[in-house]
């Protein structure tokens, strides 16, 4: 048996997996998050397959107007756009959802197949949402880390800049920038963002939310800087770059990663709102927001044109939010302790 020993008693060490592997394992166990991920992947794949759907299944063009076209249902020839019998008899009545391969969700008031347009529009919405989220998180990460780590002058300038940017109500800022830059393109050095490019919404939405993400990151970096293990490294004479790479970045990375799906959801909804107001994605491109806008005029007669893209937006945002919650629970050690008790 053990005897009294003035030396320190041995504490057995247990082999633990690294934090990333543990987090991934926790995430996989989270059924809600995994289910959301699956739904999200399905939606993404469906949108990627838009041309396939258009040519092989629907056999209808998502982009060119089809005002005088007809399709065959049950052997009968039905015009895609019928003259409207309501009101003054002006305007057209697009075909209702057929729930078959052709014009699955009906047509909009230019005779285009709504279902195909939704898949194509989804591409833009998803691209803008993810790209702007990545842009936002990367920029915010850099600014937050630099500001929090170096402090003093650099921090003062950057923080005030962020404060001013955030003081501007975020949607209004996006609206102002969009209005200005859509009416004329923007040239920064060799890079030109033409008004019709979807890079414009990506850049605008990405920048507008930077303060939202940068502030918590800056706060975390500042408190990390004061922690013992960083002080120890500083005391050992470690150069700044090594500190950043070894001590700061690995601890801040989880926070940034948690923001990604959440910002993607927020950004997608922002883009949809801007497009709904006609200052987001510009024709001939479409996004879920523009399609809802198209459908407003048809709301009481052909509601599916407006409803369907909204449902998809909601589902995608829900999956991203649930996934984001799951990622946060998996990466947050405190949450893990609570869950394990």
């Amino acid at each position, binding site marked *: 048996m053990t005897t009294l020993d003035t030396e320190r008693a041995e504490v057995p060490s247990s082999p633990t997996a690294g934090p990333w592997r543990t987090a991934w394992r926790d995430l996989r166990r989270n059924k809600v998050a995994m289910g959301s991920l699956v739904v999200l992947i399905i939606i993404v794949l469906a949108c990627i397959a838009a041309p396939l759907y258009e040519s092989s299944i629907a056999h209808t063009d998502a982009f060119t107007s089809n005002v005088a076209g007809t399709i065959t249902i049950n052997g009968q020839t039905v015009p895609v756009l019928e003259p409207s019998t309501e009101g003054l008899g002006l305007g057209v009545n697009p075909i209702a959802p057929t729930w078959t391969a052709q014009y699955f969700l009906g047509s909009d008031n230019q005779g285009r197949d709504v279902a195909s347009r939704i898949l194509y529009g989804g591409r833009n919405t998803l691209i803008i949402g993810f790209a702007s989220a990545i842009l936002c998180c990367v920029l915010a990460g850099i600014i937050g880390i630099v500001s929090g780590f170096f402090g003093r002058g650099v921090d003062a300038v950057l923080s005030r800049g962020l404060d001013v940017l955030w003081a501007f109500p975020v949607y*209004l800022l996006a*609206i102002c920038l969009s*209005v200005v830059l859509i009416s004329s393109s923007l040239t920064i050095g060799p890079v030109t963002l033409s008004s019709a490019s979807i890079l414009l919404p990506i850049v605008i939405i990405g920048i507008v939310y930077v303060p939202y993400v940068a502030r918590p990151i800056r706060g975390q970096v500042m408190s990390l800087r004061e922690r013992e293990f960083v002080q120890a490294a500083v005391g050992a004479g470690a150069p700044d770059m090594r500190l950043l790479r070894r001590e700061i970045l690995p601890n801040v990375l989880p926070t940034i990663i948690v923001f990604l799906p959440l910002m993607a959801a927020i950004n997608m909804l922002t883009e*949809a709102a801007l497009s709904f107001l006609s200052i987001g994605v510009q024709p001939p491109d479409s996004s879920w927001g523009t399609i809802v806008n198209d459908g407003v005029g048809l709301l009481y007669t052909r509601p599916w044109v407006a*409803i369907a893209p909204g449902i998809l937006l909601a589902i995608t945002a829900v999956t991203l939010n649930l996934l984001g919650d799951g990622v946060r629970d998996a990466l947050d050690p405190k949450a893990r302790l609570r869950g394990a008790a």
Partner: protein
Amino acid sequence: MWRFAGKRALAALLVLFAISVLVFLIFFATPGIDPAARIAGRNASQETLTQVRASFGFDRPIWVQYGLMMQHLFINRDLTSFVNRGSQVIPQVMQAIPVTLSLVFGAALIWVVLALIMGVAATAARGTVIDPLILVIGVIGVSLPVFWLGEVVNLVTQSRLHDTVFAWVPQLGYVPLTDGVGPWALHLLFPWLTLAVLYAGIYARVLRSEMVASMNEDYVRMARAKGIGETRVLIRHSLRTSMISIVSLFGLDFGALIGGAALLTEVVFGLQGVGKLTYDSLQNFDLPVILACVLYASFFVVLANFIVDLLYAWLDPRVRHV
């Protein structure tokens, strides 16, 4: 407390100034844009352009331009919409403000009350089925595009079920408070509910998570050790402390609300508020109106944040000395 309020007021003024500068720079300093043409609107005549150039000082240094712009907007208030020829912009905005305020405050009241009820209920019932239910409501609420939700509500109340369940729902539009509280509230009911759905769930969720965390805190245990009843502990100790985070969340959200969700709600429900005005002017590219709307809207956001700061300090005495 007064010193705190004074400091915050000063900060608010600085923020307003910064916003006005930023707006000015965006619209007038972006390279490759002719400001005069933008103010004059499309298809403006040569005389109008010269008039505008003189009035706004476009041949003078940029800070003079800024000064003149601010003068036109706030002091002279003679900015006219060049697209709707001759109609004064500022009075238009002034008329629109009560509409927006009615919408926002009514909705906020509803969602805060809902969130309080749901949050406290979720805390009292933690561990049971009600808890994740509230979580789900919250996530769905925040994921719905508000403009889409508004359209769906309209579809149901104005069209599909208008003859049966929702026959009492009036036409879209706004009725001023002076015409009676009843009609005013009735017209605003569904816009209020649409906005409230968006936020109630998420606020309930935050409140619940704060309250559940607080139940493990020492001061709750101390309160119980004093022999205080469980309900009083929940409300007077747990809720009171957790409310603070709701207030700060509200402050953050208000800004996004005014320029975003409120704007979209006004558009969808045909309420002639600042948001609808902004939207209409966007369609026509009526720059003076856009400018005025953005600045006046920002003013209210800053004012609201200031009030929220005061409320926060009133609720949490620890902040007052900062």
